[in-house]
C-alpha cells in the first residue's frame, strides 16, 4: 500500500510541478460535446473524438475550466488558502510523532483514556518503520524512473488495463446495470399491477353491481302479465326443486 501510494503521489508531483505546462488531450476531454463524461474511453478514442470535435469548429467543453480558448493563468493562492494549507502541512508532518515511541505513545494513551495501550515490542515497531519507509522510497524511485524523462501525455498501460482502472473495476457499472436499473424498472411493474389488477378489480366489482342493479331495475316493468309469468315460472322451479330433493331423499 505504501509502495503504491508513494508511486502515484510522486508521479502526480512530477507531472504537476516538473513537466512543461501542457495539457494532455485526454485530460481535457473530461467532458465531450454532448456534456457526457468520457472517462471510460481510452486515449486513442479520446484523441479521435477530439479530432472530430475540432472538425466541427467550435467545440464546447461544457464546464471544463481548462478551455483552450480561455486558458486560466496559474497564480499563487491568496492568504485564505495559504494559511490553512500551511497549518495542515505542519500538522501532517508533526502529528505522526504523537503516536510513536518518541512521544511514549501519547496518542494511543489519549484514545484509551489514559489506560496503558497494548503496543508491540519496540524491535517489531522499528522493523515496521524501516520497511515501510523503504517501500516509500522504492515506490517514489520507480515513479521517478518511469516518468522523469518521459512524455507523460502518452498512455503507458495497455488499453484494457486503462479501461479497467478508469471504470473503477466496473463496480459502478455492475451496481448501475445490475442493481439500480432493475430496482428502478420494477416501478413500472408495480404501477401497472396497481392500476390494472388491484384497481381494476375494484372497478370491476363496482361496475358489476351497477350492471346487476340496472338489470334488476329493468325487470320491474309494472306489467301484470310479466309478474304473473314470473310467478308461474318461479312456482315451476320450486316444484321441480322439491321433486328433485324429494326424489333424492327417497332414494
Amino acid at each position, binding site marked *: 500500500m505504501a509502495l503504491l501510494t508513494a508511486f502515484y503521489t510522486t508521479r502526480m508531483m512530477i507531472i504537476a510541478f516538473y513537466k512543461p505546462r501542457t495539457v494532455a488531450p485526454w485530460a481535457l476531454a473530461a467532458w465531450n460535446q454532448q456534456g457526457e463524461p468520457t472517462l471510460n474511453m481510452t486515449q486513442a478514442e479520446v484523441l479521435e473524438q477530439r479530432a472530430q470535435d475540432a472538425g466541427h469548429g467550435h467545440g464546447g467543453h461544457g464546464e471544463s475550466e481548462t478551455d483552450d480558448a480561455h486558458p486560466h493563468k496559474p497564480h499563487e493562492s491568496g492568504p485564505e488558502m495559504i494559511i490553512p494549507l500551511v497549518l495542515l502541512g505542519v500538522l501532517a508532518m508533526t502529528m505522526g510523532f504523537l503516536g510513536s515511541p518518541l512521544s511514549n505513545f501519547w496518542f494511543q494513551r489519549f484514545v484509551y483514556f489514559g489506560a496503558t495501550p497494548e503496543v508491540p515490542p519496540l524491535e517489531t515497531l522499528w522493523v515496521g518503520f524501516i520497511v515501510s519507509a523503504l517501500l516509500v522510497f522504492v515506490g517514489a524511485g520507480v515513479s521517478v524512473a518511469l516518468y522523469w524523462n518521459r512524455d507523460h501525455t502518452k498512455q503507458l498501460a495497455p488499453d484494457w488495463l486503462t479501461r479497467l482502472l478508469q471504470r473503477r473495476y466496473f463496480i459502478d457499472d455492475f451496481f448501475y446495470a445490475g442493481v439500480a436499473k432493475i*430496482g*428502478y424498472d420494477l*416501478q*413500472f*411493474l*408495480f404501477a401497472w399491477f396497481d392500476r390494472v389488477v*388491484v384497481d381494476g378489480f*375494484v372497478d370491476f366489482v363496482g361496475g358489476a353491481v351497477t350492471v346487476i342493479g340496472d338489470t334488476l331495475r329493468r325487470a320491474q316493468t309494472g306489467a301484470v302479465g310479466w309478474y304473473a309469468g314470473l310467478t308461474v315460472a318461479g312456482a315451476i322451479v320450486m316444484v321441480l326443486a322439491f321433486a328433485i330433493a324429494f326424489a333424492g331423499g327417497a332414494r
Partner: protein
Amino acid sequence: MITLLILIPVLGAIIAASSNAEIAKRIAVAASLLSTIISGVMYFTYNTAGGAMAFTEKVPWIPSLGISYHVALDGLSLPFVVLTALLTLVSVLAQFDQDKKSFYALFLVMQAGITGVFASLDLVLFFLFWEVVLIPMFFIIGVWGYENRRYAAIKFVLYSLTGSVLMLVGILALAFGVANATGQPLSFDFDVLKTQLEAIKALPGIGLIFWAFLAAFLIKLPAFPVHTWLPHAHTEAPTGGSIMLAGVLLKMGGYGILRFNLGLMPGEMQTYQTVLAILATVGVVYGAYCAMAQKDLKRMVAYSSVNHMGYVLLGIVSLNAMGIHGAVYQMVAHGLITGLMFMMVGFLSHRTHTRVIANMTGMYAAMPVLGAIMWMAFLGGLGLPGMAGFIGEFTALSGTVKNPDTAVYGYISLLGIMITAGFILYAIQRVLLGRAPGSSDDEHHDDHGSSHAHTKSHWHDLSPLELAAAAPLVILSVVLGLYPNLLTPWIDGSTQALLETVRGVTRLGDKGEAHFYEKCECRNLGSGNGYNHDESLECQLLP
C-alpha cells in the same frame, strides 16, 4: 372540554352556513384557531405520567341499549385532536380564495367529526362520528376537486362505507356477543366491553369481529390491497381536502387499530400478526414503487402516503412499546409533513396550472420561498434526520426489528426507505432544480442570482397568507424532529398503559407470548419525561 372542542366547529359551521363566503372563511379560521388553542392547552395540561384517560365526560344517551355519550382523551388521542384542529386551520388558510360559504362550513363539520372519532369511548358514538367525517369529505372532493372529482369522490365513499358497514356489524356482534356470554346488560361502552372481554376466555366468532373492525381501519389507513381509493381521492381533492385526508383522516385508521383492535382484542392481534406484518411490508415497498412511477406530482405524494402508513401498521403489529410509540409518532409526523407536501404541491400547481412532473422545472429558482419549503417537506417525507418523520420511521422500524416475529418484515421494509429516497430526490431534481422557465438563456451568470429580477414578473412566490398557512407545519415538523420530548412522554405513558392492560389478558396465544409480555428493555420509555432519543438507540442494541 371535549364537548366544547366538538361544539365549537359545529357552531362555527352553522354560523358559516348561514352567512356569506367572506364571513364564513373568517369564522372558519376563528373556530379552528380557537379549538387549536383549547386543544393545545388540554395537551399541555394532560398528566403524562400514568397515561390514563382524562377529560372524561360520560352521559347516558340511550340507556336501554347501553349507549352513552362517553368521550375522553389520553396520550394516544390527544396529539391527533390537536393535529385535527391545527390542520383544519391550515387547510382553511391554504384555501382562503374559495367563494362558497359551504366549503368552509364543511371543513368545520369534518373537524368536529374527526375530533369525535378520536375522543369517543363508546362504540356507537365512535361509529357515528366515523360516518360524520365521510359526508363533508365527499362533497369537498366531489364539488371542489379537479377534473376527475366525481369518480374519486364516489370511490372514496363507497370504499369507506364498505369498511364502516363491516365495522358496524363487528360492533353489534361484539356488544351482543359479550352481553350473551356474560349475562350482563347490553353495553357499547369501551371500558365495559374491555373489562368483560378480559373476563371471558373465548368469545365465539371473535376472529371475524376482529377482521370486521380491521376492514374499516385498513381501508382508512390505507393498507395494501385496499388502498386504491387513496390515489384518486388525494389527487382529485382540493388542496385543503388533501391536507385533511392525508393529515388526519388516514390517522383514524391507525388510531382505530390501536384503540379497538389492539385494545379490545389483543389475542387476535397476536394471531394475525404475521398477516398484518406482510400487508404492511407490501404497503411500504409497493407504495414507494407506485409513487416512483407516477407522472403526476400530487399522485406521487398520495402514493407516498401508502408507503408511510405501512410503517405505522408495521410499528403497531410489532406489539411492543417501541413499535407502537413509533407508529403514533410517525402518524403525527406524517400529518405535518405530508400535509405540508400537499399544500406546497397545491400552491405550485395553482401557479403552473399543471401537476405533471415533466412539465415543471426550475421552480426553486422561480419561487425561492415556495421552493425551499417544498424542498424541506419532500426531504421530511424522505425521513431526513432532524425532521419529525425520521423519528417516527426509526422508532417504528426499531420496534419491528426488536420483536423476533416481525424482525424480517422490518428489514424488508428498509428497502422502502431506499425507494422513497429515490423518488423524492428524483422529484426534487426534476421539479425544483434547473433553470427557471422564462429566464433567458443568453444570460451568462444565470445561476448567480441576477436572473431573479427577470423571473419575478412571471412567478408569484408565496403570499403572506400562504406563508402563514405553511409556517405552523414547517415549524412543528422541525421542532418535533429535533426535540421529540414534546410528544414522546404523551405517547409513552399511554402506550405503556395500553400494553399494561393488554398483558393482563389471558387469552393470548402461547406462541410468541414471551415477547408480548416482555416489557421494553428501556424502562425510560415508560418513565415519560426522562426519555431521549439516543437512549432508545442504545436500548435497541441490547440483546
